[in-house]
């Protein structure tokens, strides 16, 4: 992820990195709509007050997104509303990935594999691959040790591989 120049347009930057931020936000929220809400909150706050700070914006933004997700979850009224929506619509199955027709089967396989991971494993995997954080940065985000972050990541990859192709990898 590149640094943000002083005159950069938020739109160009967001077009490029918004989907990654959104996927990370999905790990901490109950629905795609909630994820969009927290990304919006965090991104606007970042763009208004923090983009001139310099340095790599990824950890800052992801911390902000995680905090916004936690705040959102605490708001009883919103949570109740979302639960009502979830009850009426079933679980939130909006897609993590975009796929063309020929890629679709593989994409679904990966997506289902991700969804089957435990929350703690999926969180680390997403932060590492799409959040582009280091293990140290992930450790700080999640208040765990870098070693724990690294081992969760390896377990997550292994579990994903098994979830996706049990025959191929066990046979």
């Amino acid at each position, binding site marked *: 992820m590149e640094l943000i120049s002083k005159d950069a347009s*938020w*739109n160009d930057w*967001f077009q490029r990195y*918004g*989907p*990654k931020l*959104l*996927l990370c936000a999905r790990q901490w929220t109950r629905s795609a709509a909630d994820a*969009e*809400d927290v*990304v*919006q*909150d965090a*991104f*606007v*706050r970042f*763009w*208004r007050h923090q983009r001139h700070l310099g340095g790599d914006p990824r950890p800052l933004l992801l911390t902000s997104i995680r905090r*916004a997700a936690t*705040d*959102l979850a605490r*708001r009883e009224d*919103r949570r109740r509303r979302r639960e009502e929506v979830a009850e009426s619509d079933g679980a939130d199955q*909006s*897609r*993590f*990935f*975009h*796929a063309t027709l020929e890629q679709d089967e593989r*994409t679904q396989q*990966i997506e289902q594999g991700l969804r089957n991971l435990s929350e703690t494993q999926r969180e680390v*995997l997403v932060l590492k*691959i*799409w959040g582009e954080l280091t293990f140290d940065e992930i450790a700080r985000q999640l208040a765990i040790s870098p070693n724990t972050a690294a081992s969760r990541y*390896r377990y997550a*990859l*292994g579990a*994903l*591989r098994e979830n996706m192709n049990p025959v191929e*990898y066990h046979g």
Partner: protein
Amino acid sequence: MDEDLKKLEAELAAMPLAETSSRLHEGIKQQLDQDELTEKPANPGWLQWALPLAAALIIAIVWPRDLQPDRLAPEPSNESSVVADFKPIASEEILYAAHDDGVVQLADGRLARQTRRSYLDKVVWRNPETNASLTWSVPRDEVRVIPLSFQ
């Protein structure tokens, strides 16, 4: 980490992610546009020179002569009494634009309806003895944010 896991890792990193929605873009745009309006109020171009000129004029008229250095007041005059004779005779606020910005999201996540009204405030002073008048006009934007509650 074995080769298979490295391949899987590379495959995941190359996955095309779902795009962000237009709703999200609109929400961000609306909030950031609002900032621009707050930072740079939409003043008509003529105000850029008219306001400083009006301010200078007011200062020139109202500035107490006895506070100015002697060299700027070479001879005694009765201008301060003339200034004192300027009386405010009219003030009005002219509403020249109103705009409904629609539903916005507040910093704490609540939804609110935002309306914007643009006024031109005018104050007129006149000296009844000389009939000289001074008009002061300044634009003002009034933004109202009304929190929404869904029953």
